């Protein structure tokens, strides 16, 4: 497709500066329009579900500890290699016990892969985004810090934390059969395959 | 024209040069010797039924850990495309390790200039008669070519300017502008110690 140019201005338009006047009229009109500025610290942005913010380890309501089973999937998948887990195997049961769970948040690229691969929904990227600090130590998260982060997040969410489902825990549009048991959470209908949005043309055909 | 046909034509034309033709997912690569690479490219660009006028990509490959017959240590890969005729071909010119050089294609496409500089910079293949054969992405005083397979991922040594920078940090400390926490890699690993286990 060849580009169509607007016609050249004629002599009268040149003398009257018509195109400049149009521009001026437009900016004048915008002078009285409503500004779109958000006065940030007073006016917080509306953070969407599944925002990739501060890391946290979900506190299990029953045990009061993290749900992590030390499967090391997050450590393996982490592209920036910022998760460090140390664990030992319990001699009686043979299950793994997490000794330490550290996330170097300054190395993290917030890709969300760790949340996605976690089979038990232990690690999560919360919707908290205001955690700037003056020293590196306070952005190095160990297990306690991570659990505390979850508590802070739970407090922010209030009662809604009961049914909190992150789109990284239970991706929208993925059949349950393709998820591990712990990820088969109850979700709004919109997230399931049955409730997915389809185009108008497709709808008409059905 | 199908890419395979072009490759066969190329083989007819430069039977001495073409070593191998390989096909993968419909993309045809022609392995050639490096000596007449400019002639091959010129023929591909200028012959009326092929008309490879768009120089898509050039990159160097280190074949050290790769198996295949006719492969020398290094390789320069040219990806060409014909905009009017909509077909593409890949030329893989073999370059030996001891004389890592090949003729430049900037006479044909001057846009190849920076591709070749990048290839020289990262892979260490120099291009004869290139008008400006210098490093492009790395600093001029860099040693080594990072994309060679023997080059370690984290680099060989500390950056040479680090000592100077440390000196500066010490100086800044006098004004209370820094806490002097700049450490070399060795020092860092010392402090981390067990963490890495």
């Amino acid at each position: 497709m060849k580009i169509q140019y607007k016609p050249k201005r004629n002599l009268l338009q040149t003398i009257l500066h018509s195109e400049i006047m149009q521009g001026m009229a437009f900016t004048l009109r915008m002078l009285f329009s409503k500004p779109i500025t958000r006065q940030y610290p007073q006016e917080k942005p509306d953070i969407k579900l599944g925002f990739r913010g501060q890391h946290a380890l979900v506190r299990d309501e029953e045990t009061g500890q993290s749900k992590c089973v030390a499967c090391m999937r997050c450590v393996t998948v982490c592209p920036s290699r910022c998760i460090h887990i140390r664990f030992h195997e319990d001699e009686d049961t043979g299950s793994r016990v997490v000794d330490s769970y550290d996330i170097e948040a300054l190395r993290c690229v917030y890709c969300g892969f760790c949340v996605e691969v976690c089979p038990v929904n232990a690690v999560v990227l919360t919707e908290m985004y205001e955690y700037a600090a003056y020293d590196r130590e306070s952005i190095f998260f160990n297990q306690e810090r991570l659990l505390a982060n979850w508590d802070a997040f739970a407090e922010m969410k209030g009662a809604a934390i009961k049914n909190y489902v992150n789109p990284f825990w239970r991706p929208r549009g993925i059949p349950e059969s393709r998820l591990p048991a712990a990820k088969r959470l109850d979700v709004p209908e919109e997230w399931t395959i049955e409730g997915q949005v389809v185009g108008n043309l497709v709808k008409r055909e059905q | 024209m199908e890419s395979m046909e072009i490759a066969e034509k190329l083989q007819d034309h430069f039977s001495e040069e073409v070593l191998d033709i390989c096909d993968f997912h419909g993309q045809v690569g022609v392995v050639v010797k490096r000596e007449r690479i400019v002639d091959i490219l010129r023929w591909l660009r200028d012959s009326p039924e092929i008309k490879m006028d768009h120089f898509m990509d050039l990159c160097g490959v280190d074949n050290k850990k790769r198996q295949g017959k006719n492969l020398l240590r290094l390789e320069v890969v040219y990806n060409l495309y014909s905009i009017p005729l909509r077909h593409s071909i890949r030329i893989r010119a073999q370059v030996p390790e001891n004389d890592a050089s090949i003729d430049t294609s900037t006479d044909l496409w001057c846009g190849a200039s920076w591709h070749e500089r990048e290839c020289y910079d990262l892979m260490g293949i120099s291009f004869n008669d290139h008008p400006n054969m210098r490093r492009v992405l790395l600093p001029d005083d860099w040693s080594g070519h990072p994309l060679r397979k023997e080059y370690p991922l984290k680099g060989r040594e500390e950056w040479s300017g680090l000592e100077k920078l440390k000196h500066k940090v010490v100086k800044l400390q006098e004004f209370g502008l820094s806490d002097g926490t700049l450490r070399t890699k060795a020092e860092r690993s010392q402090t981390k110690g067990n963490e890495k286990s």
Partner: protein
Amino acid sequence: MHVLIILIEILVLFAVIMLHVAYATYFERKIIGHMQVRMGPMRIGWHGLLQPIADGIKSFFKEDIVPEQADVVTFRAAPIICLTAMLTSLAVLPFAKGWVLANINIGLLFLFAMSSLSSYGVILAGWASNSKYTFLGGLRSMAQVISYEVAMGLSLVGVMMLSGTLNLTKIVEVQGGSFGGMYIFPQIIAFFVFFIAMLAETNRVPFDLPEAETELVSGYATEYSGMRYAIFFMAEYIGMMVMASIGTICFLGGWNGPFEVTIFPPFWFVVKVYAFMFVFIWIRATLPRYRYDQLMTIGWKLLIPLALGNIVLTGFIKAFTG
């Protein structure tokens, strides 16, 4: 005693003008902000009303950096030259009948002299900083001032011919008796030339080449910081005000208005000056920037011939109508 009164007058004028300059920056930021669907300063005071004061205090306490290789004396003097020249020109401006510090007979010429002088400050700043961006900015400014000074002077010749005087107070008085009470009607071509030359003289968009941010970083002021940078800023805004005042006096009938405001005689003068300022800002929010050679072309090939033609035309009309 007389000297003391004049000194007090000067002080009052200085204070008033400085306050105006401070709030002119606020005015500009607010207007441009709203034109760009944002809000402008909002933090300090109600809707950012104290922002200019905070800016002033901040720049006053900031470190005054002098580049190592700079010509220190000239570097330090340059902003002061700018500011002094601009402040001096305020002396001859009649804000209302009798509200003028120095009612001299060559007021218009004096204004031209002073505004040219202030460009020395810019050129010296560009040269003394010993940086290429500032140097280019200084050069551009020099060329711009020289070419647009001519166009501006010529555009005002028509006004002088009509009024028969260079005294600014008299120009306003004579103007009051003309058609519509404003010279803009008989001198529309001159006004057009004057308006464009005015934008160029004050380095405003679309002629802000000496400080073109995206080309020369900040032009002649690149190496300046702290108070000295603020002084350049002040000089620029006073320059804007002076130019707007000249426009008001020569074309819009000065302090004359549809009705008299007895409580505050300069009311109409201030309104007109701020209308000019608003147009300055409005243009800044709308137009892109000319290239350096295009600016020269407009100056020499369009404005000067137009101004000369206007002089001839005015002369003919004056000769035939008496």
